[in-house]
Protein backbone atom coordinates (compact mmCIF):
# COMPACT_ATOMS: atom_id res chain seq x y z
CA UNK A 1 0.00 0.00 0.00
CA UNK A 2 2.53 2.50 1.19
CA UNK A 3 4.83 1.24 -1.48
CA UNK A 4 2.14 1.76 -4.05
CA UNK A 5 1.62 5.39 -3.10
CA UNK A 6 5.34 6.03 -2.99
CA UNK A 7 5.65 4.64 -6.48
CA UNK A 8 2.82 6.80 -7.75
CA UNK A 9 4.28 9.82 -6.04
CA UNK A 10 7.66 9.14 -7.54
CA UNK A 11 6.12 8.68 -10.99
CA UNK A 12 4.43 12.04 -10.65
CA UNK A 13 7.66 13.65 -9.49
CA UNK A 14 9.43 12.29 -12.52
CA UNK A 15 6.70 13.68 -14.75
CA UNK A 16 6.98 17.03 -13.01
CA UNK A 17 10.69 17.08 -13.50
CA UNK A 18 10.32 16.66 -17.21
CA UNK A 19 7.21 17.61 -19.05
CA UNK A 20 5.06 19.45 -16.57
CA UNK A 21 7.72 22.11 -16.11
CA UNK A 22 7.71 22.81 -19.80
CA UNK A 23 3.93 22.71 -19.92
CA UNK A 24 3.79 25.36 -17.22
CA UNK A 25 6.19 27.53 -19.18
CA UNK A 26 4.08 27.14 -22.27
CA UNK A 27 0.94 28.09 -20.39
CA UNK A 28 2.71 31.02 -18.78
CA UNK A 29 3.80 32.28 -22.19
CA UNK A 30 0.27 31.90 -23.49
CA UNK A 31 -1.12 33.87 -20.58
CA UNK A 32 1.38 36.66 -21.12
CA UNK A 33 0.73 36.86 -24.84
CA UNK A 34 -3.03 36.70 -24.29
CA UNK A 35 -2.67 39.60 -21.89
CA UNK A 36 -0.71 41.82 -24.26
CA UNK A 37 -2.36 40.90 -27.55
CA UNK A 38 -6.10 40.50 -28.07
CA UNK A 39 -5.47 38.43 -31.17
CA UNK A 40 -3.46 35.71 -29.51
CA UNK A 41 -5.93 33.68 -27.49
CA UNK A 42 -8.25 33.16 -30.41
CA UNK A 43 -9.18 29.64 -31.44
CA UNK A 44 -8.19 30.38 -34.99
CA UNK A 45 -4.77 31.73 -34.02
CA UNK A 46 -4.01 28.83 -31.72
CA UNK A 47 -4.84 26.39 -34.48
CA UNK A 48 -2.71 28.49 -36.76
CA UNK A 49 0.25 28.02 -34.45
CA UNK A 50 -0.23 24.27 -34.56
CA UNK A 51 -0.11 24.44 -38.32
CA UNK A 52 2.97 26.63 -38.28
CA UNK A 53 4.85 24.20 -36.08
CA UNK A 54 3.58 21.13 -37.92
CA UNK A 55 6.63 20.93 -40.19
CA UNK A 56 9.13 21.38 -37.40
CA UNK A 57 7.17 18.97 -35.23
CA UNK A 58 7.03 16.27 -37.89
CA UNK A 59 10.72 16.45 -38.61
CA UNK A 60 11.43 16.69 -34.89
CA UNK A 61 9.93 13.24 -34.38
CA UNK A 62 12.55 11.78 -36.69
CA UNK A 63 15.28 13.90 -35.17
CA UNK A 64 14.28 12.80 -31.68
CA UNK A 65 14.91 9.18 -32.64
CA UNK A 66 18.30 10.11 -34.07
CA UNK A 67 19.23 12.14 -30.99
CA UNK A 68 18.00 9.42 -28.62
CA UNK A 69 20.27 6.94 -30.35
CA UNK A 70 23.22 9.27 -29.73
CA UNK A 71 23.59 10.60 -33.28
CA UNK A 72 22.64 13.83 -35.03
CA UNK A 73 21.09 14.61 -38.40
CA UNK A 74 22.03 17.95 -39.93
CA UNK A 75 20.67 17.03 -43.34
CA UNK A 76 16.98 17.30 -42.44
CA UNK A 77 16.48 20.68 -44.12
CA UNK A 78 18.08 19.60 -47.39
CA UNK A 79 16.28 16.27 -47.32
CA UNK A 80 12.92 17.95 -46.82
CA UNK A 81 13.64 20.37 -49.66
CA UNK A 82 14.75 17.56 -51.96
CA UNK A 83 11.66 15.51 -51.19
CA UNK A 84 9.50 18.55 -51.83
CA UNK A 85 11.19 19.10 -55.17
CA UNK A 86 10.83 15.43 -56.04
CA UNK A 87 7.14 15.49 -55.19
CA UNK A 88 6.55 18.58 -57.31
CA UNK A 89 8.56 17.19 -60.17
CA UNK A 90 6.70 13.89 -59.95
CA UNK A 91 3.32 15.59 -59.94
CA UNK A 92 4.13 17.78 -62.87
CA UNK A 93 5.70 14.99 -64.89
CA UNK A 94 3.08 12.33 -64.28
CA UNK A 95 0.13 14.53 -63.46
CA UNK A 96 -0.58 12.21 -60.55
CA UNK A 97 -0.42 13.55 -57.03
CA UNK A 98 0.07 10.17 -55.41
CA UNK A 99 3.03 9.33 -57.59
CA UNK A 100 4.62 12.59 -56.48
CA UNK A 101 3.99 11.79 -52.82
CA UNK A 102 5.31 8.27 -53.28
CA UNK A 103 8.44 9.60 -54.92
CA UNK A 104 9.03 11.97 -52.02
CA UNK A 105 8.60 9.23 -49.44
CA UNK A 106 10.83 6.88 -51.42
CA UNK A 107 13.53 9.51 -51.62
CA UNK A 108 13.26 10.23 -47.90
CA UNK A 109 13.68 6.53 -47.22
CA UNK A 110 16.68 6.37 -49.52
CA UNK A 111 18.37 9.36 -47.89
CA UNK A 112 17.80 7.77 -44.49
CA UNK A 113 19.36 4.52 -45.63
CA UNK A 114 22.36 6.34 -47.09
CA UNK A 115 22.93 8.43 -43.96
CA UNK A 116 22.46 5.44 -41.71
CA UNK A 117 24.73 3.20 -43.75
CA UNK A 118 27.52 5.75 -43.84
CA UNK A 119 27.27 6.23 -40.09
CA UNK A 120 27.04 2.57 -39.19
CA UNK A 121 29.01 0.68 -41.78
CA UNK A 122 31.53 3.28 -42.90
CA UNK A 123 31.79 4.33 -39.24
CA UNK A 124 31.91 8.08 -39.97
CA UNK A 125 30.61 10.36 -37.20
CA UNK A 126 27.02 11.33 -37.98
CA UNK A 127 27.86 14.99 -37.65
CA UNK A 128 30.22 14.70 -40.61
CA UNK A 129 28.05 12.36 -42.68
CA UNK A 130 24.99 14.54 -42.40
CA UNK A 131 26.95 17.76 -42.81
CA UNK A 132 28.18 16.32 -46.10
CA UNK A 133 24.77 15.06 -47.20
CA UNK A 134 23.28 18.40 -46.18
CA UNK A 135 25.47 20.04 -48.81
CA UNK A 136 25.13 17.27 -51.35
CA UNK A 137 21.35 17.12 -51.24
CA UNK A 138 20.99 20.89 -51.37
CA UNK A 139 23.24 20.86 -54.42
CA UNK A 140 21.11 18.15 -56.00
CA UNK A 141 18.00 20.29 -55.37
CA UNK A 142 19.65 23.23 -57.07
CA UNK A 143 20.88 21.26 -60.05
CA UNK A 144 17.55 19.48 -60.42
CA UNK A 145 15.53 22.72 -60.47
CA UNK A 146 18.26 24.96 -61.79
CA UNK A 147 17.72 27.06 -58.67
CA UNK A 148 14.15 28.01 -59.54
CA UNK A 149 10.94 27.00 -57.82
CA UNK A 150 8.64 24.40 -59.38
CA UNK A 151 5.20 25.97 -59.34
CA UNK A 152 1.70 25.47 -60.67
CA UNK A 153 1.10 22.25 -58.83
CA UNK A 154 -2.38 20.72 -58.88
CA UNK A 155 -4.59 22.81 -56.61
CA UNK A 156 -5.95 19.71 -54.87
CA UNK A 157 -2.49 19.00 -53.46
CA UNK A 158 -2.80 22.09 -51.27
CA UNK A 159 -5.09 20.19 -48.90
CA UNK A 160 -2.19 18.80 -46.89
CA UNK A 161 -0.56 22.13 -46.10
CA UNK A 162 -3.40 24.59 -46.37
CA UNK A 163 -6.63 22.58 -46.00
CA UNK A 164 -8.87 22.15 -43.00
CA UNK A 165 -10.64 19.27 -41.36
CA UNK A 166 -14.18 20.20 -40.32
CA UNK A 167 -13.47 23.65 -41.71
CA UNK A 168 -11.39 24.67 -38.76
CA UNK A 169 -8.60 22.25 -37.82
CA UNK A 170 -5.68 22.44 -40.25
CA UNK A 171 -4.90 19.16 -42.00
CA UNK A 172 -1.20 19.68 -41.32
CA UNK A 173 -1.96 19.86 -37.60
CA UNK A 174 -3.87 16.61 -37.73
CA UNK A 175 -1.15 14.88 -39.71
CA UNK A 176 1.62 16.02 -37.43
CA UNK A 177 -0.29 15.13 -34.27
CA UNK A 178 -1.02 11.68 -35.67
CA UNK A 179 2.68 11.23 -36.28
CA UNK A 180 3.39 12.43 -32.76
CA UNK A 181 1.00 9.79 -31.48
CA UNK A 182 2.68 7.08 -33.54
CA UNK A 183 6.09 8.08 -32.27
CA UNK A 184 4.78 8.33 -28.73
CA UNK A 185 3.67 4.74 -28.85
CA UNK A 186 6.80 3.64 -30.65
CA UNK A 187 9.25 5.37 -28.33
CA UNK A 188 7.52 5.05 -24.95
CA UNK A 189 5.54 1.88 -25.31
CA UNK A 190 7.43 -0.55 -27.53
CA UNK A 191 10.70 -2.34 -27.14
CA UNK A 192 12.01 -0.48 -30.17
CA UNK A 193 11.89 2.78 -28.27
CA UNK A 194 13.58 1.23 -25.27
CA UNK A 195 16.30 -0.17 -27.51
CA UNK A 196 16.92 3.15 -29.23
CA UNK A 197 17.26 4.89 -25.88
CA UNK A 198 19.49 2.13 -24.57
CA UNK A 199 21.79 2.43 -27.57
CA UNK A 200 22.11 6.17 -27.10
CA UNK A 201 22.68 5.96 -23.37
CA UNK A 202 25.28 3.21 -23.45
CA UNK A 203 26.10 1.65 -26.75
CA UNK A 204 28.37 -1.00 -25.32
CA UNK A 205 25.85 -2.14 -22.74
CA UNK A 206 23.17 -2.27 -25.41
CA UNK A 207 25.36 -4.52 -27.55
CA UNK A 208 25.97 -6.80 -24.58
CA UNK A 209 22.22 -6.93 -23.98
CA UNK A 210 21.79 -8.59 -27.38
CA UNK A 211 20.36 -5.57 -29.15
CA UNK A 212 20.86 -5.15 -32.90
CA UNK A 213 22.66 -1.86 -32.49
CA UNK A 214 23.57 -1.37 -36.15
CA UNK A 215 20.11 -2.19 -37.40
CA UNK A 216 18.51 0.30 -35.04
CA UNK A 217 21.00 3.00 -35.90
CA UNK A 218 20.10 2.72 -39.57
CA UNK A 219 16.46 2.65 -38.59
CA UNK A 220 16.56 6.00 -36.79
CA UNK A 221 18.02 7.68 -39.85
CA UNK A 222 15.33 6.08 -41.97
CA UNK A 223 12.71 7.44 -39.58
CA UNK A 224 14.30 10.86 -39.89
CA UNK A 225 14.37 10.61 -43.69
CA UNK A 226 10.70 9.66 -43.84
CA UNK A 227 9.68 12.45 -41.50
CA UNK A 228 11.69 14.89 -43.63
CA UNK A 229 9.77 13.68 -46.66
CA UNK A 230 6.48 14.39 -44.92
CA UNK A 231 7.78 17.75 -43.71
CA UNK A 232 8.86 18.57 -47.27
CA UNK A 233 5.45 17.57 -48.57
CA UNK A 234 3.69 19.85 -46.10
CA UNK A 235 5.98 22.76 -47.03
CA UNK A 236 5.43 22.21 -50.74
CA UNK A 237 1.71 21.81 -50.32
CA UNK A 238 1.43 24.92 -48.20
CA UNK A 239 3.14 27.04 -50.86
CA UNK A 240 1.82 24.94 -53.75
CA UNK A 241 5.33 25.32 -55.07
CA UNK A 242 8.58 23.48 -54.39
CA UNK A 243 11.48 25.72 -53.51
CA UNK A 244 14.98 24.32 -53.95
CA UNK A 245 16.01 26.63 -51.11
CA UNK A 246 13.18 25.56 -48.84
CA UNK A 247 13.79 24.54 -45.26
CA UNK A 248 17.26 26.07 -45.04
CA UNK A 249 18.18 26.08 -41.37
CA UNK A 250 15.39 23.64 -40.50
CA UNK A 251 17.92 21.50 -38.61
CA UNK A 252 18.43 24.27 -36.08
CA UNK A 253 14.70 24.87 -35.54
CA UNK A 254 14.12 21.18 -35.10
CA UNK A 255 17.09 20.68 -32.80
CA UNK A 256 15.96 23.63 -30.71
CA UNK A 257 12.55 22.06 -30.21
CA UNK A 258 14.01 18.69 -29.35
CA UNK A 259 16.62 20.01 -26.94
CA UNK A 260 14.29 22.54 -25.33
CA UNK A 261 12.00 19.54 -24.85
CA UNK A 262 14.62 18.04 -22.58
CA UNK A 263 16.55 15.74 -24.88
CA UNK A 264 20.29 15.44 -24.47
CA UNK A 265 22.64 15.77 -27.43
CA UNK A 266 24.70 12.92 -26.04
CA UNK A 267 21.84 10.48 -26.44
CA UNK A 268 19.54 8.30 -24.39
CA UNK A 269 17.45 11.09 -22.91
CA UNK A 270 14.39 12.71 -24.43
CA UNK A 271 10.64 12.27 -24.79
CA UNK A 272 8.01 12.75 -27.44
CA UNK A 273 5.86 14.89 -25.17
CA UNK A 274 8.85 17.07 -24.32
CA UNK A 275 9.63 17.54 -27.99
CA UNK A 276 6.01 18.40 -28.69
CA UNK A 277 6.00 21.00 -25.92
CA UNK A 278 9.43 22.33 -26.90
CA UNK A 279 8.40 22.82 -30.52
CA UNK A 280 5.10 24.41 -29.49
CA UNK A 281 6.91 26.76 -27.13
CA UNK A 282 9.12 28.04 -29.91
CA UNK A 283 6.11 28.31 -32.21
CA UNK A 284 4.18 30.29 -29.62
CA UNK A 285 7.09 32.66 -29.07
CA UNK A 286 7.45 33.30 -32.80
CA UNK A 287 3.75 33.81 -33.28
CA UNK A 288 3.30 36.01 -30.23
CA UNK A 289 6.18 38.29 -31.16
CA UNK A 290 4.85 38.58 -34.70
CA UNK A 291 1.37 39.44 -33.45
CA UNK A 292 2.93 42.11 -31.29
CA UNK A 293 4.78 43.33 -34.36
CA UNK A 294 8.11 43.25 -32.54
CA UNK A 295 10.74 44.40 -34.99
CA UNK A 296 12.96 41.69 -36.33
CA UNK A 297 16.02 43.21 -34.68
CA UNK A 298 14.42 42.87 -31.27
CA UNK A 299 12.68 39.55 -31.95
CA UNK A 300 15.90 37.58 -31.81
CA UNK A 301 16.87 39.27 -28.58
CA UNK A 302 13.53 38.73 -26.90
CA UNK A 303 13.32 35.14 -28.14
CA UNK A 304 16.75 34.31 -26.76
CA UNK A 305 15.92 35.80 -23.40
CA UNK A 306 12.59 33.99 -23.19
CA UNK A 307 14.25 30.66 -23.96
CA UNK A 308 16.86 31.10 -21.26
CA UNK A 309 14.24 32.14 -18.72
CA UNK A 310 12.02 29.25 -19.72
CA UNK A 311 14.76 26.74 -19.04
CA UNK A 312 15.71 28.33 -15.75
CA UNK A 313 12.12 28.42 -14.53
CA UNK A 314 11.56 24.85 -15.68
CA UNK A 315 14.65 23.74 -13.78
CA UNK A 316 13.57 25.45 -10.60
CA UNK A 317 10.08 24.00 -10.86
CA UNK A 318 11.72 20.63 -11.14
CA UNK A 319 13.89 20.92 -8.06
CA UNK A 320 11.10 22.25 -5.85
Amino acid at each position, binding site marked *: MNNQTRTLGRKFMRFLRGELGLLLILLLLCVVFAYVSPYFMVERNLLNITR*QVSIVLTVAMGMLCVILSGEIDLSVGSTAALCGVAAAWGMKTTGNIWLGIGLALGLGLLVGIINGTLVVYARIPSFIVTLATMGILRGVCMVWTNGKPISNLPESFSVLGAGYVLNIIPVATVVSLLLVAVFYVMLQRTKHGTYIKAIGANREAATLSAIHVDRYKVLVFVAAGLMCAIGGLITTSK*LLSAQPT*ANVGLEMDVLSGVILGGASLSGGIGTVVGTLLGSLTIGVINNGLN*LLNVSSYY*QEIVKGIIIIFAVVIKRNKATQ
Partner: protein
Amino acid sequence: QAQAYTIGFAVSTLENPFFVTMKDAAEAKAAELGVTLMVLDAQDSAETQASQVEDLITRGVDLMIINPVDSDAIGTSVIACNNASIPVITVTRSSNSGTVVQHLDIDNKEAGKLDAEQLIKDLGGKGKVAILEGFAGSSSAIDREEGFVAALEGSQIEVVASLTANYSREEGATVTEDILQSNPELDAIYAHNDEMALGAVRSVAAAGRSAEIKIYGIDATDDALAAVESGEMAATVQQQPDVQIQIALENAVKYLDGETLEPLVNIPLKLIVKQ
Protein backbone atom coordinates in the same frame (compact mmCIF):
# COMPACT_ATOMS: atom_id res chain seq x y z
CA GLN B 1 40.29 37.33 -80.01
CA ALA B 2 37.31 37.35 -77.70
CA GLN B 3 37.78 33.63 -77.05
CA ALA B 4 40.82 34.38 -74.98
CA TYR B 5 38.91 36.36 -72.37
CA THR B 6 38.11 34.93 -69.00
CA ILE B 7 35.60 36.91 -67.00
CA GLY B 8 34.83 36.34 -63.35
CA PHE B 9 31.35 36.89 -61.99
CA ALA B 10 31.07 37.11 -58.21
CA VAL B 11 27.37 36.90 -57.44
CA SER B 12 25.94 37.69 -54.02
CA THR B 13 23.62 34.69 -53.77
CA LEU B 14 22.08 32.01 -55.93
CA GLU B 15 19.46 31.18 -53.33
CA ASN B 16 17.24 33.86 -54.80
CA PRO B 17 15.57 33.37 -58.19
CA PHE B 18 16.40 36.96 -59.12
CA PHE B 19 20.09 36.22 -59.16
CA VAL B 20 19.55 32.78 -60.61
CA THR B 21 17.96 34.46 -63.62
CA MET B 22 20.93 36.76 -63.77
CA LYS B 23 23.34 33.85 -63.67
CA ASP B 24 21.47 31.94 -66.36
CA ALA B 25 21.47 34.97 -68.63
CA ALA B 26 25.16 35.49 -67.94
CA GLU B 27 26.02 31.96 -68.95
CA ALA B 28 23.97 32.20 -72.14
CA LYS B 29 25.48 35.53 -73.04
CA ALA B 30 29.00 34.36 -72.31
CA ALA B 31 28.54 31.42 -74.66
CA GLU B 32 27.25 33.78 -77.30
CA LEU B 33 30.22 36.12 -76.88
CA GLY B 34 32.65 33.27 -76.67
CA VAL B 35 34.15 34.27 -73.33
CA THR B 36 34.93 31.93 -70.47
CA LEU B 37 32.80 32.81 -67.47
CA MET B 38 33.57 31.85 -63.88
CA VAL B 39 30.62 32.23 -61.54
CA LEU B 40 31.17 32.17 -57.78
CA ASP B 41 28.32 32.35 -55.30
CA ALA B 42 28.99 34.13 -52.01
CA GLN B 43 25.78 32.90 -50.37
CA ASP B 44 25.17 36.40 -49.06
CA SER B 45 28.34 36.54 -47.00
CA ALA B 46 30.57 39.56 -47.52
CA GLU B 47 33.46 37.65 -46.05
CA THR B 48 33.05 34.72 -48.44
CA GLN B 49 32.81 37.12 -51.30
CA ALA B 50 36.11 38.71 -50.37
CA SER B 51 37.73 35.28 -50.43
CA GLN B 52 36.14 34.46 -53.75
CA VAL B 53 37.43 37.66 -55.31
CA GLU B 54 40.87 36.65 -54.06
CA ASP B 55 40.44 33.30 -55.79
CA LEU B 56 39.37 35.00 -59.01
CA ILE B 57 42.43 37.25 -58.85
CA THR B 58 44.58 34.16 -58.35
CA ARG B 59 42.89 32.57 -61.30
CA GLY B 60 44.00 35.60 -63.33
CA VAL B 61 40.68 36.60 -64.86
CA ASP B 62 40.81 39.41 -67.40
CA LEU B 63 37.91 41.30 -65.93
CA MET B 64 35.64 40.89 -62.98
CA ILE B 65 31.92 41.51 -62.74
CA ILE B 66 30.94 41.84 -59.12
CA ASN B 67 27.47 41.81 -57.65
CA PRO B 68 28.49 42.93 -54.17
CA VAL B 69 26.90 41.47 -51.06
CA ASP B 70 27.58 44.80 -49.43
CA SER B 71 28.70 48.07 -50.95
CA ASP B 72 31.05 48.98 -48.13
CA ALA B 73 32.54 45.58 -47.57
CA ILE B 74 33.40 45.01 -51.20
CA GLY B 75 35.72 48.03 -51.15
CA THR B 76 38.85 46.21 -50.09
CA SER B 77 38.25 43.55 -52.74
CA VAL B 78 37.84 46.15 -55.48
CA ILE B 79 41.05 47.80 -54.35
CA ALA B 80 42.75 44.42 -54.50
CA CYS B 81 41.55 44.07 -58.11
CA ASN B 82 42.81 47.55 -58.86
CA ASN B 83 46.19 46.61 -57.47
CA ALA B 84 46.21 43.47 -59.60
CA SER B 85 45.21 45.60 -62.64
CA ILE B 86 42.01 43.67 -63.14
CA PRO B 87 39.16 45.92 -64.30
CA VAL B 88 35.93 45.67 -62.34
CA ILE B 89 32.31 46.17 -63.35
CA THR B 90 29.76 46.23 -60.55
CA VAL B 91 26.13 45.27 -60.99
CA THR B 92 23.05 45.90 -58.87
CA ARG B 93 25.04 47.24 -55.91
CA SER B 94 27.95 49.63 -56.18
CA SER B 95 31.28 49.67 -54.43
CA ASN B 96 31.93 52.51 -52.06
CA SER B 97 35.67 52.51 -52.60
CA GLY B 98 38.21 51.57 -55.25
CA THR B 99 37.71 52.29 -58.93
CA VAL B 100 35.34 50.44 -61.20
CA VAL B 101 35.14 50.87 -64.94
CA GLN B 102 31.38 50.77 -64.93
CA HIS B 103 28.50 50.40 -62.53
CA LEU B 104 25.15 49.09 -63.66
CA ASP B 105 22.68 50.31 -61.16
CA ILE B 106 19.33 49.05 -60.09
CA ASP B 107 17.72 51.57 -57.87
CA ASN B 108 16.08 49.59 -55.11
CA LYS B 109 14.63 52.72 -53.56
CA GLU B 110 13.00 53.43 -56.86
CA ALA B 111 11.54 49.92 -56.93
CA GLY B 112 9.98 50.43 -53.53
CA LYS B 113 8.68 53.78 -54.68
CA LEU B 114 7.02 52.28 -57.78
CA ASP B 115 5.19 49.73 -55.67
CA ALA B 116 4.14 52.42 -53.22
CA GLU B 117 2.76 54.64 -55.94
CA GLN B 118 0.76 51.80 -57.44
CA LEU B 119 -0.48 50.85 -54.00
CA ILE B 120 -1.63 54.39 -53.23
CA LYS B 121 -3.45 54.39 -56.54
CA ASP B 122 -5.07 50.98 -55.93
CA LEU B 123 -6.25 51.82 -52.45
CA GLY B 124 -7.31 55.31 -53.25
CA GLY B 125 -4.77 56.85 -50.95
CA LYS B 126 -6.13 55.33 -47.77
CA GLY B 127 -5.77 52.03 -45.99
CA LYS B 128 -3.62 49.65 -43.98
CA VAL B 129 -0.54 47.92 -45.29
CA ALA B 130 1.79 45.30 -43.83
CA ILE B 131 5.39 44.92 -44.91
CA LEU B 132 7.39 41.71 -45.30
CA GLU B 133 11.05 42.60 -44.95
CA GLY B 134 14.06 40.95 -46.53
CA PHE B 135 17.16 39.80 -44.61
CA ALA B 136 17.64 42.09 -41.67
CA GLY B 137 20.57 44.30 -42.49
CA SER B 138 20.85 43.52 -46.21
CA SER B 139 21.22 46.65 -48.33
CA SER B 140 18.43 45.68 -50.72
CA ALA B 141 15.99 45.30 -47.84
CA ILE B 142 17.03 48.63 -46.38
CA ASP B 143 16.65 50.47 -49.70
CA ARG B 144 13.38 48.83 -50.67
CA GLU B 145 11.99 49.76 -47.29
CA GLU B 146 13.19 53.35 -47.47
CA GLY B 147 11.87 53.98 -50.97
CA PHE B 148 8.51 52.51 -50.10
CA VAL B 149 8.01 54.27 -46.81
CA ALA B 150 9.17 57.60 -48.23
CA ALA B 151 6.65 57.39 -51.05
CA LEU B 152 3.82 56.77 -48.60
CA GLU B 153 4.45 60.14 -46.97
CA GLY B 154 1.50 62.38 -47.41
CA SER B 155 -0.96 59.61 -48.12
CA GLN B 156 -3.30 58.20 -45.51
CA ILE B 157 -1.81 54.79 -45.78
CA GLU B 158 -0.76 53.34 -42.49
CA VAL B 159 1.91 50.67 -42.02
CA VAL B 160 0.34 48.39 -39.42
CA ALA B 161 3.02 45.67 -39.32
CA SER B 162 6.56 45.28 -40.54
CA LEU B 163 8.22 41.92 -39.96
CA THR B 164 11.07 40.03 -41.56
CA ALA B 165 10.50 36.91 -43.61
CA ASN B 166 14.08 36.66 -44.81
CA TYR B 167 13.28 36.75 -48.53
CA SER B 168 11.87 33.23 -48.23
CA ARG B 169 8.55 32.03 -49.55
CA GLU B 170 7.95 29.70 -46.58
CA GLU B 171 8.60 32.40 -44.04
CA GLY B 172 6.57 34.83 -46.11
CA ALA B 173 3.65 32.47 -45.74
CA THR B 174 4.14 31.92 -42.02
CA VAL B 175 4.65 35.56 -41.12
CA THR B 176 1.65 36.54 -43.21
CA GLU B 177 -0.48 34.10 -41.24
CA ASP B 178 0.48 35.92 -38.07
CA ILE B 179 -0.09 39.33 -39.62
CA LEU B 180 -3.54 38.26 -40.73
CA GLN B 181 -4.34 37.16 -37.21
CA SER B 182 -3.44 40.45 -35.62
CA ASN B 183 -4.95 42.59 -38.38
CA PRO B 184 -8.58 41.82 -38.99
CA GLU B 185 -8.53 44.83 -41.25
CA LEU B 186 -5.79 44.85 -43.83
CA ASP B 187 -5.81 46.21 -47.35
CA ALA B 188 -2.40 45.41 -48.74
CA ILE B 189 0.88 43.57 -48.20
CA TYR B 190 4.11 44.89 -49.60
CA ALA B 191 6.95 42.38 -49.75
CA HIS B 192 10.60 43.22 -50.38
CA ASN B 193 10.70 40.45 -52.96
CA ASP B 194 8.39 38.25 -54.95
CA GLU B 195 9.19 35.09 -53.06
CA MET B 196 7.76 36.48 -49.85
CA ALA B 197 4.88 38.01 -51.79
CA LEU B 198 4.06 34.59 -53.24
CA GLY B 199 4.15 33.08 -49.77
CA ALA B 200 1.73 35.80 -48.67
CA VAL B 201 -0.52 34.95 -51.62
CA ARG B 202 -0.90 31.41 -50.28
CA SER B 203 -1.69 32.47 -46.73
CA VAL B 204 -4.12 35.16 -47.79
CA ALA B 205 -5.88 32.66 -50.03
CA ALA B 206 -5.98 30.07 -47.23
CA ALA B 207 -7.56 32.67 -44.97
CA GLY B 208 -10.12 33.44 -47.66
CA ARG B 209 -9.16 37.12 -47.77
CA SER B 210 -7.82 37.31 -51.32
CA ALA B 211 -10.50 39.73 -52.39
CA GLU B 212 -9.71 42.36 -49.79
CA ILE B 213 -5.91 42.21 -49.63
CA LYS B 214 -3.67 43.31 -52.48
CA ILE B 215 -0.13 42.01 -52.63
CA TYR B 216 2.90 43.78 -54.05
CA GLY B 217 6.36 42.40 -54.73
CA ILE B 218 9.62 43.20 -56.46
CA ASP B 219 11.75 41.21 -58.93
CA ALA B 220 9.21 40.01 -61.51
CA THR B 221 10.19 36.36 -61.29
CA ASP B 222 8.31 33.95 -63.53
CA ASP B 223 6.00 32.82 -60.73
CA ALA B 224 5.27 36.42 -59.82
CA LEU B 225 4.48 37.40 -63.39
CA ALA B 226 2.00 34.53 -63.54
CA ALA B 227 0.52 35.61 -60.21
CA VAL B 228 0.08 39.17 -61.44
CA GLU B 229 -1.52 37.86 -64.58
CA SER B 230 -3.97 35.74 -62.60
CA GLY B 231 -4.72 38.59 -60.26
CA GLU B 232 -3.24 36.96 -57.16
CA MET B 233 -0.68 39.74 -56.93
CA ALA B 234 -1.43 43.36 -57.64
CA ALA B 235 1.97 44.35 -58.95
CA THR B 236 5.64 43.56 -59.12
CA VAL B 237 8.62 45.56 -60.30
CA GLN B 238 10.77 44.30 -63.11
CA GLN B 239 14.43 44.98 -62.64
CA GLN B 240 15.50 42.95 -65.64
CA PRO B 241 18.40 41.07 -64.12
CA ASP B 242 18.95 39.34 -67.47
CA VAL B 243 19.23 42.59 -69.39
CA GLN B 244 21.52 43.95 -66.74
CA ILE B 245 24.04 41.14 -66.93
CA GLN B 246 23.85 41.02 -70.71
CA ILE B 247 24.82 44.66 -70.90
CA ALA B 248 27.54 44.09 -68.33
CA LEU B 249 29.07 41.27 -70.35
CA GLU B 250 28.86 43.13 -73.65
CA ASN B 251 30.51 46.14 -72.07
CA ALA B 252 33.14 43.95 -70.47
CA VAL B 253 34.20 42.63 -73.85
CA LYS B 254 34.11 46.11 -75.31
CA TYR B 255 36.32 47.38 -72.52
CA LEU B 256 38.80 44.56 -72.96
CA ASP B 257 38.84 45.33 -76.66
CA GLY B 258 39.97 48.82 -75.82
CA GLU B 259 36.83 50.90 -75.73
CA THR B 260 36.04 53.22 -72.85
CA LEU B 261 32.81 52.85 -70.90
CA GLU B 262 30.26 55.14 -69.34
CA PRO B 263 30.86 55.11 -65.59
CA LEU B 264 27.17 54.60 -64.76
CA VAL B 265 24.37 52.76 -66.53
CA ASN B 266 20.89 52.88 -65.06
CA ILE B 267 18.78 49.85 -65.77
CA PRO B 268 15.24 51.05 -66.28
CA LEU B 269 12.68 49.65 -63.88
CA LYS B 270 9.27 48.62 -65.01
CA LEU B 271 6.18 48.23 -62.90
CA ILE B 272 4.20 45.17 -63.93
CA VAL B 273 0.46 45.18 -63.31
CA LYS B 274 -2.30 43.12 -64.86
CA GLN B 275 -2.86 44.11 -68.44
